[in-house]
């Protein structure tokens, strides 16, 4: 009887731990309506031109108990670039810059995630950014903004990251001098828990 009780308690503890671990690993699908990818780049050395990429999809998994098990996968359609000027957008999509008909997708896949500040929920994410046919590892500091229920019965979580890349690293060298090399990206992601 006593052995049975111990066994049941142990089994209950094991199940409870497993369920807790599973509950802490949450997968979210990117909500494209509430996710923004914004960029800015220097123009003629005198001002910044801003733009955005409108078509983004992906998933991210957050595991607070085991942050190293977290991951992010994002995909952006390069043809969705939007700088509020049709001719400029046409130029950007062409062979001079993104060449979207040869390289239609921009992707990011995380290779490691580390929680660097529990209080402020800051993370460091390393991953492979593929752009214009070139894949390079980048490191991004991510601020997890929050998580909670939405009015439609779902559960959401969001994060924001700001980082800089050089377009020359991705063989997009055209019009050096007239257009800056450094591109600052702001990615604000919101996901719906699956």
């Amino acid at each position, binding site marked *: 009887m006593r052995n049975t009780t111990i066994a049941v308690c142990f089994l209950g503890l094991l199940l409870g731990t497993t369920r807790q671990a599973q509950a802490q690993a949450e997968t979210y699908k990117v909500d494209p309506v509430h996710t923004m990818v914004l960029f800015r780049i220097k123009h003629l050395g005198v001002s910044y031109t801003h733009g955005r990429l409108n078509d983004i999809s992906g998933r991210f998994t957050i595991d607070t108990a085991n942050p190293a098990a977290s991951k992010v996968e994002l995909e952006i359609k390069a043809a969705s670039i939007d700088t509020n000027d049709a001719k400029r957008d*046409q130029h950007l999509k062409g062979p001079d810059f993104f060449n979207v008909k040869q390289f239609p997708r921009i992707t990011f896949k995380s290779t490691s995630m580390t929680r660097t500040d529990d209080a402020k929920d800051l993370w460091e994410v390393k991953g492979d950014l593929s752009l214009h046919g070139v894949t390079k590892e980048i490191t991004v500091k991510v601020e997890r903004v929050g998580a909670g229920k939405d009015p439609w019965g779902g559960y959401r979580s969001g994060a924001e990251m700001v980082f800089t890349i050089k377009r020359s690293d991705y063989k997009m060298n055209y019009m050096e*001098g007239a257009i800056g090399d450094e591109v600052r990206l702001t990615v604000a992601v919101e996901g719906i828990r699956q």
Partner: protein
Amino acid sequence: MFEKLLLTALLPAGIAAGVILILLRSRLLPESLAPEHGLGAGALGIGAAYTACHLLALDEGWPGFPPADVTHWALFGAWLATALGLAEVAVYTRFEERPAIVQPARWIPRIALSAGLVFLILSGLAALEETWGSPSLPMLVTGLCAASVLLFLQLDGLASQRSQLYGTLMLSAALGGTAGVVMLAGSAKLSQLTGSLAASMGALFGLVFWSSALTPLRGAVPVIGFVLVAVLVCACSFTDLPPAAAFLLILTPGAARLGRAGPLARAPLWVSVLIGLLGIVGLLGGAAALTHAAAPEPYSPH
């Protein structure tokens, strides 16, 4: 930016003229390459001029081999075309009186290189990945090869004129206008590459004006033709240049020949130039109108 554009115009013109003059003066080329008429020098001069523009004026340096960005196949196509131009000159010089040898020796490599270049450029189109096994890709390559044959026939016609003053001037105008239409389609880079050919033709015009015995355009036809094929296939595939507009651009050298057709062959040069330019401008205008009409609407996810 203005300095870049100037570089695109002056660099290829300077290199084309420089290379041809050096080869003419130094007598480095063998007799089979017709050094006294500048045939072989024409191929090397235009090939060198285009190479310099592609590597120096685009800010992209050496593209690597094979190039990740398929638009860079135009550079390697130009190198092969330069070799082809030299081979054509050598065969023509040796077997001038035997067209049964000259014609196949000219057309078989041209068609093969056209097919290869077109295939390599189209292989970069992500949208074609699903069609590799279907008959549509070979049909597309065949159609584009046929268009390149048409282009070469017209270039040969211009290059075979007794005086190349007219041919080089008209080709410079046609290529300059083509550069403008390609710019309108959305690629300043491809426009620069076409513009470099136009500037090189300007240099050839200057050389032929200096010495009417020179016929460098004949040797340069393969380089001009293959670079133009590469640029137009890239423009149709990766920018918003409509195929119909590209077809009109291919016809511009033929329109130039109108100025020397029939009784106009004996007309004063300025009359021929005027008529030829009218024909070129008409076709360029049509291509520009089609390109403008094909410009896409601003992106909207809704």
